[in-house]
Every structure is written in structure tokens, then in C-alpha cells.
């Protein structure tokens, strides 16, 4: 049942340093007077990179059976995608509400 080829503390420390470096890049970008939309896009891309590294290595997804990844991740992403697309309906319903 146990996953194979688990990495050692040396790799984890390297990832930890990398994640801190990404956070510092985010703070640096914040003060580069980018347009809000560009800044948001950059910060989200970096956040997704951090999350991907965290899930793959810290949460060991990379070392689990691929069935786990394919059962969980695409469905969760689909739900989040649909959530994003139906959320503006909340505003439409608010405008249509009785006053």
C-alpha cells in the first residue's frame, strides 16, 4: 500500500527554499506598477505553480498511484471551472430580485 521512491529531506528543503523564492518574486512584482489585471494574472500563475509543487511533493501526489490523481484532480478542476462560470448568476439574480 505504501508509495515508492519517496524523496528525502534534502529535496524537501530545496522545495521549501524555492517556494519562499516564489513568494519573494510575488512581492517584487506587486511593486512594479503593473496593471491590476496583469498583476493578478502573474500572481495567480505563480500561486498555481506553488500549489502544484506543494501537491506533487509535500502531499506526495507525484508518488501515489496515478488513479488517485485522475480521479480527483480533473473533477475538482471541472467543478471550480463551473463555479467560476455560474457565479455571475448571483449578480443577475440580485438585479432581478423584488424590491
Amino acid at each position, binding site marked *: 500500500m505504501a508509495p515508492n521512491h519517496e524523496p528525502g*529531506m534534502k529535496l*524537501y528543503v530545496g522545495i521549501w527554499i524555492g517556494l519562499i523564492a516564489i513568494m519573494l518574486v510575488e512581492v517584487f512584482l506587486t511593486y512594479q506598477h503593473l496593471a491590476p489585471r496583469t498583476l*493578478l494574472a502573474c500572481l495567480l500563475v505563480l500561486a498555481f505553480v506553488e500549489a502544484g509543487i506543494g501537491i506533487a511533493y509535500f502531499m506526495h501526489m507525484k508518488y501515489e498511484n496515478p*488513479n488517485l490523481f485522475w480521479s480527483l484532480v480533473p*473533477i475538482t478542476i471541472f467543478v471550480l471551472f463551473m*463555479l467560476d462560470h455560474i*457565479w455571475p448568476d*448571483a449578480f443577475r439574480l440580485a438585479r432581478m430580485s423584488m424590491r
Partner: protein
Amino acid sequence: MDAGHGTFMEASPYGIESKKLAMWLFIASDTVTFTALLFAYSYLRIGSPNWTPLFKFWPSLANGMVMTIVLLTSSLTMLGGVMAAKAGNKKSCLRWMGYTMLLGTIFAALHLREWFGMIHEGWRLFQNPLGGSVEVGAGFFCVTGLHLLHVISGVAALAVIALGFKRGWLTAGHVETTSLYWHFVDIVWMFVFPIVYLMNAQ
């Protein structure tokens, strides 16, 4: 009849213990919860023409950076705990879990210090001392409050698991399963920090 239940059970198609699968399913559902809140926050921010950026680099963003480093370090110490638990080194595992709980407590303390500082300045759920949109405070306290609740719950869960592991009624599998939750809380912060803090830098 002498055979245990295990004789009749199929192997997991995922190759993991059921408690670990349950934690993964919980994490997937909690991801949706946090995402819904962050979407709501983002829509409010875009929809409010008088949104006021509220964070100066010092002390707020600097505090947020320290909190990020503390939480990332706690993930590292949690990994140390899992490795020690799997190696059967109970003493080392408990020490690493102790460090993780300490770092989680420091994170919560830094966060609460910031909250109280903002409340002292006049920020409330529906009150903006800067005169802009009142949803700024509501968004900030709701998003960071839910995350803070997860951190405090995580510290409590780690304490219970550490106690059970020490006394021998919980296994390395329980430590590993709890570590998934702790790393998830860390990963959520990777989104909260840029969206709530950095996008509101003055």
C-alpha cells in the same frame, strides 16, 4: 469463519488506506469551499468602484511575508514528522510534530495580532475607516477568518494525533493523513496571500 474481513476485501484501486482517500476527498471539497469564497471576494473587489487598497508594506505585507515563511516551514517540519513516523522513530516524530504545532500557533498569533490592529484602526465586517467600500473589511475578515479557523483546527488535530501516536493507539498512517490536511492549509495560503494581501498593497 475464522478468516478476517481482510480476506474478502478487494485491494484499493488507489493503493492507499481508506482514511487517506477520505482525507483527499475532504481536501477536494474544502478546495471548492475556499475557491467559492475567493471567487466571491474577487467579484466583490471588481464590482466595487471605491475599493480601498489597505495594506502598506510595513507592517502588513511584511507581516504577511513572515506568516508565509512560518507556514511553509511548518509544512517542512510536518514532513520531518511523517518521515520519522514511517521510520518508526516515535520520539523524533513527536518532536517534529511539536515544531509544527508551535509554528502553526505562531502563524495564528501573528494573524490575530494583525486582526486586532485592524479592529483598533476601525475596521469591521461592514465598516471601512478609509471611507471606501464597506465590503473590504467583510472580504478580508471572511477569507482570512476561514483560513485561520483551518489553521487552529489543524493545530488541535495535530495535538490529538501526536497524543494518540505517543500512546500507541494511532499509527504512522494517521500522522501521514493529518499531514495532508496541514499541507492543504499551507497551499490555500499560497492563494490567500497574493489575492487578499498583495492585490491590496498601497
